[in-house]
């Protein structure tokens, strides 16, 4: 039977898409890159996922797991055709309030999980800005972060177990509520593997008790370095707030023009800080953050008076990318990290690079983690601009690596940064990574061409070093 017949035998006619316009949609994600899907499959159950994997293997066609397609590193795009496996129908949630855990279908939307847990005084800590759209499967695959991962850690710190479908359609349940499962922690390795080791069908996640008290502060500064220095000084003073987020003037203005959140636009940067815990601690830590801010030149310290004001401030922060989309046809951002003590100089260098290329750069970032997102607004219909944006982006990443930083803090490597892996790792490091992949997926069917550059396996010497094809970009 043909591939499509086999898929339909497993899923029925209506859960396999093949119309060009549908395939077009599933050939892109939130990055600037695109590929070409052969079919899109919508399994409902783990058994169906396993059956689809076996069909793909029988036809030697790649499987590209896909959640909501909000990924920014081109992780979910089919590079050279293949079956896009959409998890959106796998959306069950089973709470265990006593153990503060939940088994969650891969297709569950991040925010829906926290809404489900809220009546029990619990929440799921990872809160990417895309949380109203992105899926738990995508969060697990990318080890996604969020504003509140500063104190609580990114997705991997909240995943206790996984149900996965691996090569051969083998279904494994890894980890569990008990800590320290004996043997190698395969579950932990699958988190952050960007769909290249197998398909995550369900995740057992840890939920946290909603804190007794919270205080959200908005500080505004006459220069960006005052804001970044405040962040470094707060961490150095021994306080790890729940969140420390910075937006520069351009970004704040874009958000304010769109949402009218009451953000000050006449300053160089704003710092959004949140402290949580017992009321006494919240009081003391809020006072510390504000005094460190004032020492570093903050003009005002505004404290959200109620939940409504707090929600507006966070909506402003989490809508940042969307706000740029209102004012520019395209934007491109890099997700890089530097040691927190080197934030100030890195931000200066990023600005200098943008100036050199004559580009508009907007900054919004998880400052507490040293995680930058310099965002360049441009018009992609101008090929000269696209090229400039790429080159400037690469220089920004290089500037971070030169300061002991990392290629990506939370968005993943995907296809986008795969060739840059050589700038961070040695051949032997990459070879070791390629071996991890090989142990899971010897045939290379799961999300090929992602994460590792071609020829990473040292013994592939004969192989040509293929770079990302130019045509993959928008």
């Amino acid at each position: 039977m043909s591939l499509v017949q086999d898929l339909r035998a497993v899923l029925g006619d209506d859960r396999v898409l093949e119309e060009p316009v549908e395939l077009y949609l599933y050939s892109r994600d939130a990055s600037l890159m695109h590929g070409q899907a052969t079919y899109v499959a919508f399994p409902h159950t783990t058994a169906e996922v396993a059956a689809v994997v076996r069909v793909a293997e029988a036809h030697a066609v790649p499987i590209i797991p896909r959640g909501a397609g909000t990924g920014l590193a081109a992780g979910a795009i089919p590079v050279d055709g293949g079956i896009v496996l959409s998890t959106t129908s796998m959306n069950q949630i089973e709470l265990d309030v006593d153990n503060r855990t939940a088994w969650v279908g891969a297709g569950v939307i991040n925010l829906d999980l926290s809404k489900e847990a809220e009546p029990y005084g619990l929440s799921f800590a990872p809160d990417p800005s895309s949380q109203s759209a992105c899926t738990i499967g995508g969060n697990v695959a990318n080890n996604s972060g969020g504003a509140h991962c500063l104190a609580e850690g990114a997705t991997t710190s909240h995943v206790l177990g996984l149900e996965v479908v691996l090569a051969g359609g083998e279904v494994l349940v890894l980890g569990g509520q008990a800590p320290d499962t004996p043997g190698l922690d395969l579950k932990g390795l699958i988190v952050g593997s960007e769909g290249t080791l197998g398909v995550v069908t369900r995740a057992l996640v840890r939920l946290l008790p909603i804190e007794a008290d919270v205080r959200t502060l908005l500080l505004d500064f006459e220069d960006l370095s005052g804001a970044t220095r405040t962040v470094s000084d707060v961490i150095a003073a021994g306080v790890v707030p729940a969140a420390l987020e910075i937006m520069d003037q351009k970004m704040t203005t874009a958000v304010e023009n769109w949402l009218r959140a009451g953000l000050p636009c006449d300053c160089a940067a704003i710092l959004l800080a949140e402290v949580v815990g017992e009321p006494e601690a919240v009081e003391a830590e809020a006072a510390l953050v504000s005094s460190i801010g004032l020492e570093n030149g903050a003009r005002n310290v505004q404290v959200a008076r109620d939940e409504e004001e707090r929600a507006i401030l966070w909506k402003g922060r989490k809508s940042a990318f969307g706000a740029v989309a209102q004012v520019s046809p395209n934007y491109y951002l890099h997700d890089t990290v530097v040691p927190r003590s080197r934030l100030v100089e890195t931000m200066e260098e990023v600005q200098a690079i943008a100036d050199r290329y004559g580009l508009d750069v907007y900054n919004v970032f998880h400052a507490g983690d040293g995680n930058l997102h310099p965002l360049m607004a441009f018009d992609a219909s101008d090929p000269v601009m696209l090229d400039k944006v790429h080159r400037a982006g690469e220089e920004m990443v290089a500037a971070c690596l030169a300061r002991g930083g990392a290629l990506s803090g939370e968005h993943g490597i995907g296809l986008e940064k795969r060739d840059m892996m050589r700038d961070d790792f040695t051949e032997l490091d990459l070879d070791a990574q390629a071996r991890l992949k090989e142990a899971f997926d010897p045939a290379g069917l799961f999300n090929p061409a992602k994460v590792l550059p071609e020829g990473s396996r040292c013994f592939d010497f004969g192989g040509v070093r293929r770079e990302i094809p130019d045509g993959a970009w928008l």
Partner: protein
Amino acid sequence: MTEAAGGGRRAYREVTPDSVETLALVLREATESRSVVQVVGGGTRQGYGSPPAPDIVLDMAGLSGIEEWDPDDLTVTVGAGTPVADLEAELAGRSQTAVLPEVPGASTVGGVVAAGMSSLRRGRLLGTRERMLEVRLVTGDGRVVRGGGRVVKNVSGYDLPRLVVGAFGSLGVITSVCLKLWPRPPAAATVSIGDLESAGRVRRPLAVLEHDGSTEVFLWGTPEEVFSSTARLEGESREGHHWPADPAGPYRWSLRIPPASTTAGVSRLPPVWSYLAIHGAGEIRAASDVPDGAEDLRGWAEGVGGSLVVVEAPKDGINGLDPWGKPPPGLEIQRRLIAQFDPARVINPGRLPGGL
């Protein structure tokens, strides 16, 4: 590098490499000659699994010391042979902690990571895997490999740093790690409480430990917060943290169960066992003179999705009890993974479940 002839039942070579390059050489040779290499940090956790007698004993003391520590970044990079006690003492000087075991004895950082041991504060600050930012290791066939990086957030490539936690060196001998540190807040207290129930009056305590009949809540934070939490607990309070040592005995056990089953776990321990239960984390450390009752306990633990692990037992004293119990799922993949890093299986063979 120093070498010495080992005593005991069988001769082995003792090697203390003083550089990564020397270590790589030793391992490459071991792979060529198919020698069994036993890696020793502080020697406090050599009882796991059922390893064969070693041909080479690797003493990691030559690869120790703080390599890089920027207190403002809350990260530290240390050699694997660094004693945990030395590292934590150094960090405490700047009011920081790596959240490693509190009563480590001679344990080294590499040993704690490889054996997957965690802090008693894990209910609040999570286990050792959450501290891992970067790892450098030498594979069984002598390749020097790095994973991760020296920043607090990183998704560049597969998560090798976390994978080596609890892997007993099967992917390579760990030479250094970069750890995420945590600030030590200004105030700390240890409060003895009468019943476990009342611990619930503090929302997220640093630790709730039960050992041999008594229960203590460990608090830290701002002075105001610690003061008010102490008052709410209504127990006898002492300033600072007074951490209990792990129970000692010829048999040592690690019971791992869902957190909500911790009280049930304590009640199921044979009455003569001594124990230290970490509430909220699902870990109970225990010790006994004889292994009686272990089989029943293991049956119960596996029934609730957990395990009972033999941490230490007298030679030949384990009465046919498997050191790990029911093998975990995915053994075949684990075997393939290990084969990619240690093809001749020379580093600490037989330590892991399933005889890996």
